[in-house]
């Protein structure tokens, strides 16, 4: 029996800021002080507040230490673990109010969250099947196998209103039912963990923090649709997720929770891991299955849908990681308790990877129907440096943006679709007034051009042409006619592409053109970038009234574009200038340099 548990985040974010070293040092120091029998160190999955990592929680006090460094460990061990004096300077700012230490759940970041898919992330040791079982793990599978018929399981999932969390929002229960109804000698369950959107990392966090819940959910799905084999397709760039998932599968096999005759029900289920090489198109279901089969990851036309002819030509159900993460909870607590959360047509919660110009970057899980304002201003802690909120980008390269005027939109599938946006897998990138919307659209198009698999012409050639026009716009070389062409191409590509990648690739352009047309016009007509991002359209200028002739800017300039001797006004030669902004940084005190 340990009197104290120290939980250290072992997610990718915190691992990259040396949480492994912290754990090692912590264990050494604890052993040195003779506390090894009293204090247990546990490596967990992601706590969500990645901006403040590495994160450490000490129980029973529940102290939330943030931005912990290896050098801080001796103090934590000596003061807190040995003597019981909380190291206040390391506490997460918000948990320290005047004199008392607030509970984590009362901080603004966690207060409005409802952690369902992430319920075990940052709570249990993901490498221990016992800890997962302690928090009702595998109870849902046991319930299904011993008391429910496969059709009952499907009915529960249908009643819960769960919809696919990978982006499309297709009702999960229906998907299962379609596959269940197709007779075949072999069927498959596939988990899509090929999270490819730039900025999205919720699937990774679930696999890293709670891999057993995916194992359990896939077995439940297998039972419901009549499949005995399952595949998790996870990208190889997620090494921690892969190793924890493989360990989880091994442990489940040892405990007889996978394999033959689980819970004496005669049900058999085996799980395999397949690594993806990181092609964005492999997140598309038919391309993903083609890749599992060992072929080049390219999509194929649908129908036939995977429920009829999927992996290896057999009926297959494919769901996203986060969709599966909800399943055990729905089975355990009933469809009603899940359906009680969210909006009329979008039930439950959604995990978002919050990034961009926001104070608390990290992972948040909110009930459907939470407004964008609550996410940004309350949970996210607002925009840093007193800047103004301009727009939020959702759905990555397939999605659109929500402008500041629609900040009170309730986030759910249908509301986002209505404004020409998309839930997507859950990347939420916050942008402030310094972000150029044309540049954002160009960035995402650049990504899709790279990632287009090349199988169909609209996507392969069309996106390339769109990117060329966008480049012209950001360089100030476009005409108004180009804007019309851009829009026409966008609709054409949407209508005619083979798979989801091409069908959604124009979305970032269409959405920014819809809400920020004036910015496009400014680039085309006035040859100006209002946000001061597009380099070809801006010049640096030294105000002769403010310049004190200190020579700092001239010394900082890497191309010698600034002329002037000490104590005289300096001038920038705009022909030589490469617009790197070094002069503006150098002139921080006097502020004589500005963008025009």
């Amino acid at each position: 029996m340990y009197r104290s548990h120290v939980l250290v985040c072992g997610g990718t974010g915190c691992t990259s800021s040396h949480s492994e070293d912290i754990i090692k040092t912590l264990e050494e120091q604890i052993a040195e002080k003779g506390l090894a029998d009293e204090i247990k160190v546990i490596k967990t999955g992601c706590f969500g507040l990645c901006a403040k990592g590495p994160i450490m929680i000490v129980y029973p006090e529940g102290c939330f230490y943030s931005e912990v460094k290896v050098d801080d460990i001796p103090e934590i061990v000596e003061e807190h673990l040995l003597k019981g004096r909380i190291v206040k300077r390391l506490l997460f700012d918000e948990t320290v109010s005047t004199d008392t230490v607030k509970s984590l759940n009362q901080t603004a970041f966690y207060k409005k969250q409802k952690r369902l898919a992430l319920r075990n992330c940052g709570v249990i040791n993901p490498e221990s099947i016992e800890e997962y079982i302690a928090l009702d793990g595998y109870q849902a599978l046991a319930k299904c196998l011993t008391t429910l018929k496969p059709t009952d399981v499907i009915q529960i999932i249908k009643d819960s209103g769960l919809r696919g969390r990978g982006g499309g929002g297709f009702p999960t229960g229906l998907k299962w039912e379609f596959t269940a109804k197709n007779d075949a000698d072999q069927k498959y369950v596939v988990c899509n963990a090929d999270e490819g959107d730039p900025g999205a990392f919720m699937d990774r966090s679930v696999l890293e923090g709670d891999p057993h819940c995916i194992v359990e959910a896939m077995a439940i799905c297998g039972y419901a649709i009549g499949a005995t084999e399952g595949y998790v397709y996870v990208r190889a760039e997620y090494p921690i997720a892969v190793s924890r998932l493989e360990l989880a599968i091994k442990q489940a096999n040892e405990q007889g929770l996978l394999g033959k005759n689980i819970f004496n029900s005669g049900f058999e289920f085996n799980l395999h891991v397949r690594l993806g090489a990181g092609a964005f198109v492999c997140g598309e279901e038919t391309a993903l299955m083609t890749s599992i089969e060992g072929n080049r990851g390219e999509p194929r036309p649908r129908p036939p849908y995977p429920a009829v002819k999927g992996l290896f030509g057999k009926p297959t159900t494919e769901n996203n990681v986060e969709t599966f993460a909800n399943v055990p909870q729905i089975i355990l607590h009933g469809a009603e308790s899940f359906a009680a959360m969210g909006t009329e047509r979008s039930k439950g919660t959604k995990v978002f990877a919050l990034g961009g110009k926001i104070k608390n970057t990290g992972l948040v899980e909110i009930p459907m129907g939470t407004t964008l304002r609550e996410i940004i201003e309350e949970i996210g802690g607002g925009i840093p440096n007193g800047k103004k909120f301009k727009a939020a980008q959702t759905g990555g390269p397939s999605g659109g943006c929500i402008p500041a005027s629609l900040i009170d939109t309730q986030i759910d599938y249908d509301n986002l679709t209505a404004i020409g946006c998309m839930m997507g897998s859950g990347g939420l990138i916050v942008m402030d007034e310094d972000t150029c919307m044309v540049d954002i659209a160009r960035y995402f198009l650049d990504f899709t051009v790279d990632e287009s698999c090349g199988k169909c012409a609209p996507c392969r050639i069309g996106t390339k042409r769109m990117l060329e026009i966008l480049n012209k716009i950001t360089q100030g070389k476009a005409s108004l006619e180009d804007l019309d062409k851009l829009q026409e191409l966008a609709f054409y590509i949407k209508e005619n592409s083979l798979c989801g990648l091409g069908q959604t690739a124009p979305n970032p352009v269409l959405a920014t053109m819809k809400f920020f047309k004036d910015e496009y016009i400014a680039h085309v007509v006035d040859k100006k970038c209002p946000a001061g991002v597009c380099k070809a359209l801006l010049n640096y200028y030294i105000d002769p009234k403010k310049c004190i002739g200190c020579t700092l800017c001239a010394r900082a300039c890497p191309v010698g574009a600034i002329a002037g001797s000490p104590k005289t006004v300096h001038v920038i030669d705009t022909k030589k200038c490469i617009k790197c902004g070094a002069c503006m940084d150098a002139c921080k005190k006097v502020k004589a340099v500005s963008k025009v």
Partner: protein
Amino acid sequence: MKTIEELNAIREKAKANMTVREDNEDLIRVIVGMATCGIAAGARPVLNGFVDEIARRKLNNIAVSQTGCIGMCQYEPIVEVIEKGKEKVTYVKMTADKVARIVSEHLVNGNVVTEYTVGAVAK
């Protein structure tokens, strides 16, 4: 795994090892003063005594934690018992031998061991 009973057995065993992580206001909290003065006076065996005794009796409604100097160094080791809706009880000059009695009489049956409290000792 053949039966739910097997699964439940693992669950109960693993759960008992995780109670320390519960964030529950309804728990009875046993707080041991573990500043330099407390440790010097022998607070560590007292703390471990509570942890072991509570684990042995499988009491899952009690959280044992430590705190810094309570301020009455001459009475160390000091242990405080805080229960929601009740007045705080402070035991002083604690030893490991006194632990079992406090657990059985106070924590289990709700009868404060008056003779160990600060009121009795300080007279």
